[in-house]
């Protein structure tokens, strides 16, 4: 039942078959490549030129310049690095904590389920942004703090999804068969059930990535994100809103890139959900026949 590399490629091919998903994938790829290879691009996000502050978009500065005369395009590109690193780190943290918690809770049930899920309920009761701000107040203002804050805020969703998947799968025959062959609980949870519960978790990872980017931008907008002069999309929005009259491109263009990134992640998430649902339905149909 486990999805192999062939089926992943097939999934990607089917994803690319959808026009909106293909466009979103291409845009995200562009942003990711720009973020990864930013150091090789002729862009400098930090050097100030006060004489050239708040310049409109031009051939020299495609997105214009900010109030300190820095190239907005360069800051958008390097800001992508901040956003994507936060998104990636947050997803890893959320999955690394949330999935095992959900697996244990769902697999064993009993008191372990009660204790773990009440802890998750406590986390869920806290508004993400408030929790993240509180954590940053304790850890201090840095990219690592933002990443951890957003990651921990994403734990409950992963835990709940993993738990629900395990509860549905643990009763099925292939799990009972593994158990009858003497498979340990750990083996069954991580080697038998988890691979078959991946579909919704992958979709959740994409959803959380978009939430993480948005949350990181919101934290920066509120002034508790990565400290300046490190570029951040949220920080650019925060400062740019003060210059909407003099330099509309300052806030609008980073805002547009942020919106497109979130939109792309959301589109891919939806497309993946639809494809995986169809995929699962096909499998079920085949099993039935």
């Amino acid at each position: 039942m486990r999805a192999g590399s062939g089926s992943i490629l097939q999934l990607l091919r089917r994803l690319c078959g959808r026009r909106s998903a293909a466009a979103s994938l291409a845009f995200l790829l562009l942003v990711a490549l720009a973020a990864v290879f930013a150091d090789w691009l002729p862009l400098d996000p930090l050097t100030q030129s006060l004489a050239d502050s708040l310049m409109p978009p031009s051939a020299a500065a495609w997105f214009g310049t900010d109030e300190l005369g820095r190239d907005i395009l360069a800051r958008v590109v390097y800001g992508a690095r901040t956003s994507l690193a936060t998104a990636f780190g947050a997803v890893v943290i959320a999955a690394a904590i949330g999935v095992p918690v959900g697996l244990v809770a769902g697999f064993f049930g009993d008191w372990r389920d009660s204790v773990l899920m009440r802890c998750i309920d406590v986390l869920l009761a806290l508004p993400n942004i408030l929790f993240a701000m509180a954590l940053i107040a304790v850890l201090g203002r840095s990219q690592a703090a933002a990443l951890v804050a957003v990651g921990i805020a994403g734990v409950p969703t992963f835990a709940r999804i993993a738990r629900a998947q395990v509860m549905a799968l643990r009763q099925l025959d292939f799990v009972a068969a593994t158990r009858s062959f003497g498979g340990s609980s750990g083996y069954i949870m991580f080697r038998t059930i988890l691979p078959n519960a991946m579909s919704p978790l992958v979709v959740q990872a994409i959803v959380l990535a978009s939430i993480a980017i948005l949350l990181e931008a919101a934290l920066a907008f509120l002034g508790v994100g990565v400290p300046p002069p490190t570029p951040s999309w949220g920080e650019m929005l925060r400062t740019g809103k003060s210059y909407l009259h003099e330099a509309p491109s300052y806030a609008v263009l980073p805002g547009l890139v942020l919106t497109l990134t979130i939109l792309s992640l959301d589109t891919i998430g939806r497309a993946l959900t639809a494809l995986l649902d169809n995929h699962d339905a096909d499998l079920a149909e085949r099993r039935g026949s």
Partner: protein
Amino acid sequence: MTTISRRQFWMAGIALAAMVPMAASNTAAAQQLKGGTLRVAVLQELANYDPQQLSTVNFHVIKNLYDSLIEYTADGKPEPSLATEWMIAPDKTSVTVKLREGVTFHSGAPFKADSVLATLQKGADPKRGKNVFPTMSVVKDWSAPDERTVVINFKGPVPDRQILDLLQFMIPIEAKGIDTVETVPAGTGPFLLVSRAVGQGLRMKANPNYWRPQQPFAQELVFTVFSEDASASAALESGAVDLIYNGSSRSAVRLKSAGYQVFTGPGKLVQVFRINSTRGPFRNKSFRQAFNHLIDRAGILRVGYAGLGEVVAQPWAPASPAFDGSYNKSHAYDLEKAKALLKASGLSPAEMKDWKLLVNGSEESSVQISQIVQQALAKAGIPIELDVRQGAEFVTALLGGDFAAVFGAVGNVQKFPSRVATNSIYRTVQNPILKDPHPHPAYVAAIARVDAATGSEAEVKAAYDNLNKVLVDEAFAVPTNSYEVGLIVASPKIGGVTPEIDNLLVARTIGFK
């Protein structure tokens, strides 16, 4: 400074007292202002109604609910208000103040000497005196020979200007309202408080018993609190408010170009790079002095304050008697000079970068100018990090002196020079940053010399020159620029805006054209 004789002083006071109503009626006649409801946008919520807690959040109400004993004109000349006359004793150890007759508090009680005595008592109390307390340090005692006269005695001879500053700072509060003044205003001012909605604004109405003839022009004064500068600007442009008080310089510049009136006043603040000279590399004088040449003052003024203000290397506004523009040239941005001083400091590169610049994250201009300095330091081979903190976290660090360096504004820069010592970084005793004993005795001595300079003009000037020299030499505070506080942006239909020495909002003279 010339000493004026007793007769001259009385005469000057009486003449000025006679001129005030004349000037007011002339202004009204010339501008033909009409009354109505004056709607003012403010960007900060009022803290309380205590006029001795003079901070920018209260600037919009103080001169509308209260009057001071004397006032200053925009160019720093004293004029009567609740005091009609004042006489400084020839030995400068006392001042006798005659109080105006026919003035009533908002409660209806007559204004007499007892309220001035109660106000002085509050000001001299270290817990209740708030911002007035440091000014009262020169005062020994006070008395009221009769209900219209108050005599203030000083601990020693005090310069005339310092005495006048004290009278200007003294805002009489009704004696029986002293204890509740934070929540219930108790003044003689041109407007009466009608209602307040915390976080939203407040409403006042004209005081029908106000002592200045024909004032206030407006029958009603309505303040609305806006959390965003852009929202306040939009409200002005849409006609929802008539003026914005204490908005940003950037918005003012934009609105001016759109045809709105912008009024700046003499009561500027000076932005100062505050250095904790008891910490890390800042213990080294050469290292501190390098900052005089590392700071791009013109760039800071342009980016942080839209060019509204002046570049300054000393903590004085141009209206200050100690202002000396030559320091702006001698201590201008010069990377080579800065590098030479850094080299002379003998500090290693690791020692030089062993600190963080504290930044007020809630204040956009602070974030911007801190980044400008950060880049200048990087050019000089000192890469540092910014320690950006928000709200209470920043204020706690600032007031507790828990920082290596930080930008922060100082006030009273247009008054008597030693008044600069009312700002925390410039305090000579109980300095919350530099602590006691003060690590810069030369500065403490320079302030004392200014306070003691009651003699000839040459003696006074020498004391000011000495203070300026010591300030740049010790370099525990590096001023960068003056900037506008209490900036007024008004619709074209507004007239009668009066500049106030501290840039407080004086609504009584404002009307509609």
